[in-house]
């Protein structure tokens, strides 16, 4: 018999914490060179300046996997956890500088003394929010105050409960929402809860802003939350654009305001520091920080990218509002899970959970992809129900000059078969082709900001990036086309996407099948392009048969993609990488 839901959620959180700690311990057990090689450390750092916020470090070479917000130690590289606790802000490739902030939530510690000429090292540090989330789970299931939220989570919330209708169909019409957006908007404004599935480019953020705007216009208080700061900021910025007078607050540190207009969005450093001013407001906070708001009551909680929010994290959000709207897509990127779990609940997102309990509204028009680009994802993932909106159905990529047939406007989606062998994470030949295609597109008039390369592995992405730096010397590093994993591009879009798989060894990729053959990641990878998608793929990968059913399903999708999309041969090159 299965354990009760809260016990399962806490057990999942505990296992995730253990797995994170074990991973970190294994990384710290490596030598410095091994850690740097694995992208888990940066060496040869020297302090250029230090201040009340953090440090600026000279960094001759940066190949780490660190992202903004990652918690790190700055130390001598040997006694790793004796280093100062910092948070990674960014790497400036132009000036070869790394910027890190003091971690306000960690015990302050000075930098270790290093001898003259010796350098500092950045190493990964554990950021454990599990206790906070576990407390939120227990609070949800133990407090009598949160009975309604509990009922909602376990599927017993009544749909017919009378609630205020904050806006009607006329507002949807005035906002120019399409038919399925209007239907979802009306439900969100008139029902106690509504779950909206937004396939790629279907206008989730626009809809979210419209719903929030309606509640604000009615004088209500709205909580906006998501797993990442970027997702929260996207929604807040969209609200600010549509309603410049809306009072908007973002809870978070200075570095977590990327993309926000600071003239329109007020900042508050922590959830506990936020004070209700009375009246309508929009408060943005990540699901990690949401437990700090327990005790507050909003009129609406809107969870964006709810397909990436785990059920455990949702427990901190549900008690915070009388009504709930979840916008997301369980067919795109799922919650981040690092441990192996037998309990399927570990991989179940808030959106998937609610979708299966209560159903959801599907936004069926995509305002991103043209009709041809939409076809395969629509059939493979959305039962054929996703269609390109009329305004973008026929859009095409136009490149000036005599370009490769690969870059021709038609067909909009092509596969370029790769003939290298034995590649597991990187192929020089494929990286060369990817870079050449991007360079040709930029030279042919496509804005660099409208091109991106998606590569599953950092090593391959680094190689492509290096070739782009060499091939587009007139562009500064921050203006180069983005080359990154699909996780960094969820929510993003470009006119031209080059999807470079790099691998060609069907046995070698089985070791990371759940990552490589994830159907959700494939969906996101195939749906970033507006006008042109170029898939660089080795037919040998089609002979990989991952052992678990979900990855096998992903590999089947890849086989279907191969037989569906037209193939255009690349320039003749050696079979080796």
């Amino acid at each position: 018999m299965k354990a009760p839901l809260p016990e399962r959620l806490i057990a999942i959180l505990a296992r995730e914490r253990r797995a994170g700690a074990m991973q970190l311990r294994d990384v710290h057990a490596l030598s410095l060179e091994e850690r740097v090689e694995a992208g888990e450390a940066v060496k040869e750092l020297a302090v250029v300046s230090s201040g009340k916020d953090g440090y600026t470090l000279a960094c001759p070479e940066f190949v780490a996997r660190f992202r903004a917000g990652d918690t790190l130690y700055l130390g001598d590289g040997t006694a790793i956890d004796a280093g100062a606790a910092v948070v990674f802000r960014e790497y400036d490739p132009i000036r070869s500088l790394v910027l890190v902030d003091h971690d306000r939530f960690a015990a302050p510690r000075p930098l270790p003394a290093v001898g003259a000429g010796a350098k500092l090292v950045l190493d990964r540090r554990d950021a454990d929010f599990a206790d906070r989330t576990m407390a939120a789970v227990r609070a949800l299931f133990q407090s009598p105050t949160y009975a309604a939220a509990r009922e909602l989570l376990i599927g017993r919330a009544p749909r017919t409960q009378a609630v205020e209708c904050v806006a009607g169909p006329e507002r949807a019409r005035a906002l120019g929402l399409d038919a399925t957006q209007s239907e979802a908007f009306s439900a969100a404004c008139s029902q106690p809860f509504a779950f909206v599935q937004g396939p790629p480019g279907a206008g989730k953020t626009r809809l979210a802003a419209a719903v929030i705007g309606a509640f604000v216009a009615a004088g209500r208080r709205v909580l906006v939350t998501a797993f990442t700061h970027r997702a929260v900021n996207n929604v807040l910025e969209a609200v600010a654009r549509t309603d410049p007078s809306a009072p908007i607050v973002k809870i978070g540190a200075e570095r977590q305001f990327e993309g926000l207009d600071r003239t329109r969005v007020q900042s508050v450093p922590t959830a506990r520091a936020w004070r209700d001013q009375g009246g309508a407001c929009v408060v943005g906070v990540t699901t990690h920080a949401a437990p700090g708001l327990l005790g507050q009551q909003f009129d609406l909680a809107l969870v964006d990218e709810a397909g990436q929010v785990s059920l455990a994290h949702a427990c901190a959000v549900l008690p915070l509002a009388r009504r709930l709207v979840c916008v997301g897509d369980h067919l795109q990127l799922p919650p981040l899970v690092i441990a192996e779990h037998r309990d399927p609940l570990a991989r179940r997102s808030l959106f998937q959970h609610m979708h299966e309990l209560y159903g959801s509204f599907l936004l069926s028009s995509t305002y991103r992809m043209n009709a041809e680009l939409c076809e395969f994802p629509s059939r493979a993932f959305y039962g054929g129900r996703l269609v390109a909106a009329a305004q973008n159905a026929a859009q095409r990529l136009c490149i000036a000059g005599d370009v490769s047939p690969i870059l021709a406007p038609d067909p909009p989606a092509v596969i370029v078969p790769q003939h290298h062998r034995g590649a597991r994470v990187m192929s020089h030949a494929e990286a060369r082709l990817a870079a050449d295609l991007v360079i040709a597109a930029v030279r042919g008039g496509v804005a660099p900001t409208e091109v991106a390369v998606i590569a599953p592995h950092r090593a391959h992405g680094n190689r492509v990036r290096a070739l782009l730096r060499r091939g587009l010397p007139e562009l500064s590093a921050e203006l180069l086309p983005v080359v990154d994993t699909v996780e960094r591009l969820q929510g993003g879009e470009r006119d031209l996407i080059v999807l470079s798989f790099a691998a060609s060894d069907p046995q070698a990729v089985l070791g990371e099948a759940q990552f490589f053959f994830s159907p959700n990641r494939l969906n996101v990878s195939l749906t970033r392009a507006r006008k042109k998608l170029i898939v660089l793929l080795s037919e040998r990968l089609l002979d990989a048969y991952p052992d678990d059913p979900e990855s096998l399903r992903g590999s089947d999708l890849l086989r279907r993609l191969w037989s569906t999309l037209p193939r255009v041969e690349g320039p003749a090159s050696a079979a080796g990488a």
Partner: protein
Amino acid sequence: MRPIDGTRIKESLTCERLPWLDFHGPRDQVQQPTERMRILFQSGQRLEARILAGMDVESVRFDPGQFDVGFAATLDAMTRRVPAIANGVLKLGEFLGRPDLLLLSEAGVYEVADIKSTQKVHAAAMMQIAFYSRLLGQIAKPPRHGHVILRSGERFTFALDEFAASLERLLGRMQSLRNRVDTDPGPHRVEACVDCRWQAVCMNDLEVADDPSLAPDLTREQKGALASAGITTLRAVAAIADTRAVADASGLAHDLVTRFVRRARAVTEGRPQFYGAVRPELASADLALAALVDERAKDAVVAVAGIVASRPDRFRVRWMRAREHAHPEQEFAELVKNLARTHGPLLIYGPSVRRALEEALDLDPSLADAVESVLARTLDVRGELRRACALPGFDRRPADAVRAAGLALVDHDAIDLDALGYLEDDARTDVDSVARWLRRDLDALLALRSFVVAGAAPS
């Protein structure tokens, strides 16, 4: 000519050459099943009988090899709308299927169910069922779902159209091999070769060709990439002096080429090659843990045992998930509490112990903190071995690594078969065989520890 059948489909996922040999290989050189495979087969039959006994089925009976008779009987049963048909035959042209069950769904369509002695669903089983379903769909109304019935009796159902492209590609390859459109893929050594009926044929071919895959963990594609750089034999791999040049010519990553060279030298010289350092605490760790995990099931843990290195007589087996043990949760709690009282690193080999302790938290979630503290102290000898040393053989299990390292080990195969027999045979209650397996693995663990500490460079 042999037909394309479900077993061949399933096995092709393990080895590219296996179907070719089944179709065209010298039949007089097929080996009898190994003892291990015989035990597994008999266990599978007992499981099938047990599950079928609990169902109302009509079994199709025919003399061995008389598949036409079996097919006719199956069609007859389907015409009579028998709800559950066991051991039916589906035959069409070059294809032959023998699904464990044909179940009549509520929609009036027959669907395929196969019984597997594993605890999880594997791709091979799904492809086998997809194949049977495809055949079925050419004889009767096409089914939309297939079913895997697991060891526990749990049923996993999947939508066939989500795996259709995978099956078509496999079938295409089968047909190409059978009809000699594709040529013999050639031998390539993998860990599963040890139980293969064609092992003698392939090993002979590998040795005659001095095939690079005689060194462990080289994939076919990597072998092909080396060949494109002019490296086609094991000795040629071992003789590579300029690894960067070969990496550039082959397109393989430099660290991969370096690894292949070390392993190839280990095989050609017949001894391990040391090149790296190990963690200093490896030398002083005093407690070793082993777990028995049924590799096929991947998650069926039977027991965890510990041994104190400085006191090798102190061997304890705790926490049996075996059926005859009345209180596994008490045994698990005692194990964890005893471990939590120890100090220093805990030697383990691979992920089995961690996985076993993690999964056993289902028995007693309140022990999570204690388990966590134990796990935090584990030190993986296999990981250290791989960092410091290339062995001339596979190393996934401690006994294999000991053999590859040239260390003495007693009764390797006999112990494995004893314990395997215990795992598979519900009627047996001999836990001593499990204890012998665990003790053997612990001794292997300690021997490997000493071996790698002695041979590795100081950290």
